[in-house]
């Protein structure tokens, strides 16, 4: 990217969007070809489960020996409603799945995840197992000897969230991997009316970029400016211009400049995005009524509506960030986890169905991230912070090679080959490999990949292969 290009991008991201906004919507395809950009629409949707999902209860082995090891490590089977019983999901309640290839061993989903089980069995979902932040392949021996090159502050919430978001390892980085992807691809999608990165869940390190600011809206999209309407009143129109003028002033502090930048983007985009969402047709899978829809499902409904308006907004590449909290199950895990996982399952399957309604199921890949996996051992009524865990990827059959478990399913045993103590498992697949696989599909080149996933060259497998 040459200097002039960067300068141009910076100007655009700083709010000089008159150019992007002035073009006639709806002609994106022809222009894309002319611009040398991407030919087809693609979107990544990150579902972040804040708190650290106890994913060893999400996909469980069903061979006798492996299940028994798991049950023992988790202090025995759960008794429904008894928080102090063991943490293991009862064998009989597991929802069986038949993964293609890999070990061929039978597995099962948590009983509250019937939606995801069905997606998996029909090839529309995949599991990436024993994954977590790594700087290089790491052995138990090296870990014990203190010679392993490790991400800093393992087992700490915000630090490990930061690792998933940024893949920074031990480097200082102010950007997240989605932010860096946006920095790399924005030059190829110059006609997009909105930033590559859109968040339904606040500011995130994941989307922080060097040049291209993400745009943050609420669960149901942006809100309109109350003082700027109706526009039939000239004073209201002028009020908008006055707000823009005030935020375009030259300010003496970094704080005023940053704040003004956000407000300028808010003013510039509120109507554009609201009009798009309002123009979207209702979805059967994620209906307009909020009744029975979780916050996560409402966020994903807004995502689906914006995707449906991709032509109007001239969008070719989008990364959405949605999130759900409550996964830090130190306490009362047996009572809390079923609803947490049911929500994930319902949200992922409803959103996938919405993409089928829109005919974009092969253009949209949804993936989960979470702080860390949790300890296999119990603290009496819950589990604590650990390291490797399992993640889900959802997409249509020509995008995703589904019904498979990627990575190496670990031995779920205390003092097993991957356990560094208390059932904290060393990941055997890295977050960098996961991000690189997603970014490659999105359009990042192999040469650019170390900018997105800085440790990727430390791993032999640079693409986990779950995306076509």
């Amino acid at each position, binding site marked *: 990217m040459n200097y002039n290009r960067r300068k141009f991008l910076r100007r655009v991201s700083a709010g000089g969007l008159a150019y992007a906004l002035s073009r006639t919507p709806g002609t994106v395809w022809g222009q894309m070809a002319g611009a040398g950009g991407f030919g087809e629409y693609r979107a990544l949707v990150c579902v972040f489960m*804040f708190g650290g999902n106890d994913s060893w209860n999400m996909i469980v082995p069903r061979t006798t020996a492996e299940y028994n090891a798991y049950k023992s490590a988790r202090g025995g089977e759960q008794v429904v409603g008894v928080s102090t019983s063991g943490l293991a999901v009862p064998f009989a309640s597991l929802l069986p799945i038949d993964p293609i290839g890999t070990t061929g061993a039978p597995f099962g989903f948590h009983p509250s995840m019937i939606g995801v089980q069905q997606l998996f069995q029909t090839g529309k979902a995949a599991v990436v197992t024993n994954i977590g932040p790594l700087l290089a392949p790491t052995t138990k021996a090296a870990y014990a000897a203190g010679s392993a090159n490790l991400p800093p502050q393992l*087992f700490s919430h915000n630090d490990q969230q930061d690792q998933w978001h940024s893949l920074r390892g031990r480097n200082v980085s*102010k950007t997240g991997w989605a*932010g860096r992807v946006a920095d790399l691809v924005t030059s190829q999608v110059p006609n997009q009316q909105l930033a590559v990165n859109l968040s339904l869940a606040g500011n995130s390190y994941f989307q922080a970029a*060097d040049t291209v600011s993400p745009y943050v809206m609420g669960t149901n999209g942006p809100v309109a400016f109350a003082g700027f309407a109706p526009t039939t009143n000239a004073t209201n129109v002028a009020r908008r211009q006055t707000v823009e003028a005030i935020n375009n002033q030259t300010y003496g*502090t*970094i*704080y005023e400049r940053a704040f003004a930048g956000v*407000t300028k983007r808010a003013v510039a985009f509120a109507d554009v995005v609201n009009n798009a969402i309002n123009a979207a047709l209702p979805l059967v899978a994620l209906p307009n009524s909020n009744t029975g829809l979780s916050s996560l499902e409402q966020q994903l409904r807004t995502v689906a509506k914006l995707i449906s308006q991709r032509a109007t907004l001239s969008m070719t590449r989008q990364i959405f960030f949605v999130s759900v909290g409550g996964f830090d199950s130190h306490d009362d895990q047996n009572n809390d986890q079923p609803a947490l996982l049911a929500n994930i399952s319902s949200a992922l399957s409803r959103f996938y169905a919405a993409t089928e309604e829109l005919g974009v199921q092969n253009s949209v890949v949804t993936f989960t991230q979470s702080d860390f996996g949790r300890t296999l051992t119990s603290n009496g009524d819950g589990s604590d912070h650990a390291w490797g865990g399992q993640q889900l990827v959802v997409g249509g059959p020509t995008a995703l090679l589904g019904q498979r478990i990627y990575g190496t399913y670990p031995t779920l045993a205390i003092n097993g080959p991957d356990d560094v103590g208390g059932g904290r498992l060393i990941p055997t697949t890295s977050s960098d490999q996961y991000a690189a696989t997603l970014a490659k599909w999105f359009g990042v080149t192999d040469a650019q990949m170390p900018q997105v996933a800085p440790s990727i060259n430390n791993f032999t497998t640079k693409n986990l292969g779950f995306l076509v």
Partner: protein
Amino acid sequence: MARSIKIAQLAIAGFLVFVAGCSGGAGSSSPPPPVPPPPISKIEAYRFLNQATFGATDAEAQRLIALGDSTNSYSRWLDEQFAKAPSTQLPTVVAAVPNPIPAGFNIGSLHAQRVEAWFQNVLNGDDQLRQRVAFALSEIMVVSQLGALANFPLSLADYHDMLARDAFGDYRKLMEDVTLHVSMGIYLSMLGNQKPNPALNIRPDENYARETMQLFSIGLVELNVDGTPRLVNSQTVPTYDQSIIEGFANVYTGWRYAYPGVTLFANAGRATLTNQVQPMQAYADQHSTGTKKLLSYAGAAVTTIPAGQTPAQDLANALDNIFNHPNVGPFISKQLIQKLVTSNPSPAYVARVAGVFNSDSQGRRGNLQSVVRAILLDSDARSAPSAQTAGKIKEPLLRLTQLWRAYGARAASGKYTATAPGFPSATFAQGPLQSGSVFNFFSPFFAPTGEIANQNLVAPEMQLATEYNNTQIMNFFWAQAIARTTAQTGLGADVVVINTTQEQAVANDSEALVNRVADKLLGGQISAELKASVKAQVNLTATTVPNTRVADAIYLIATAPEFVLQR
């Protein structure tokens, strides 16, 4: 704006001249008549009060100025504040508990009374500094209504009252009060934490052990006294490892609800209205009795707890061990500076305050009253700000409370939060003790894309400044300015109105109107550009519609970056 800064600089210069004159005058044969120190300016008063209260007001600025001169006004104001008794929340919430409690009563609904009490205290309480420091502490030692404490409004009200009581006290006592509070016990799951049971692969819960060190006391890496990371071979040095987490996790075992006279852990698992506002009680039968590894650092008294001590002995050893770690001074001092004065304090500023934390003028460690005084009287807090990094963004709740305090906001019913469910968090993305996680509404390390991140600076409160949140808050302020003022009639008894009588009186004169609003909200310090923009907008509306003219002036200034900035 240029003129205003000049005035402020003159005031400081005058102060320095006076001091120099005093010390130099002793040897002179005919000393010049002493120049009386000037009073502090209104701009200076506003700056100080925005650091030390929930929003500067005309009246409080005038009172502060009248307390003395530039050498003693601030100090006298602080002395007054240190002596104020804390405003409380718990009695308000307790009074709202129905007696008898009807079947099916949702006790969680009483959080509304807790939030209402917070607004009453921070808007009208005279212990402004204490409440402001308690608010800062509530964003460091975080507990939240969202999650496991949804049904503990009494306990959370008591937690905030505890922070207010301890705000000018001893940090070691604060650590212990926090550790044993039922709210923290539930939130970070120390309450009910049991000793190991190897047969079932059960080990103690590590949640509180980890977060109390990471967030409430020492942080993740060793610090110099100026708050910068200590580097060895250009690498940071971790303050603890997993084995130390496990040591502390074992310390924090055996604590549950207080049941005086009860000795068995198993019999103390039920919360009541009474025991949720009492410190947790120790139950030795579930306390881990083995040795426990603590933090090692130069001068640490106990680095391994011997086997067989009582829960209380272990806790005392453990909290002493954390409290005396050299990181606590810089770690806590820097965060308090960031909450009260500036997001990017100079290392020298942090070092001066941390020095006071480590040993105040009486030789006491962790005296928060001395620390708060040092933060607010420091030259970096008091001399006229000129650096591009000076000051901070006001977090959303503080923008609201400042507007409301400056405009004497009140409802006929006297309530502040009765009109809208979910107020204030639904609009302002935060509310008292309503963080989404123990990591607070915003991280002390947050840096928005652009020059702040590029220069390795931070703007923590910017984490809440999303396009969405900025719009929501601007819309609230528009609704307040256009439709919820003393100029409107027929509003409901619970509608909070701002008093715009003075603005209405000068509404036909845009210059006077804008000056009046700038006086109240900015202490008179308004840029020429902002003033011109607001005047032009005001003048678009005929003087026959004074309400819109007044609304534009208030809305545009209260949402301008100049108001959002805490100088």
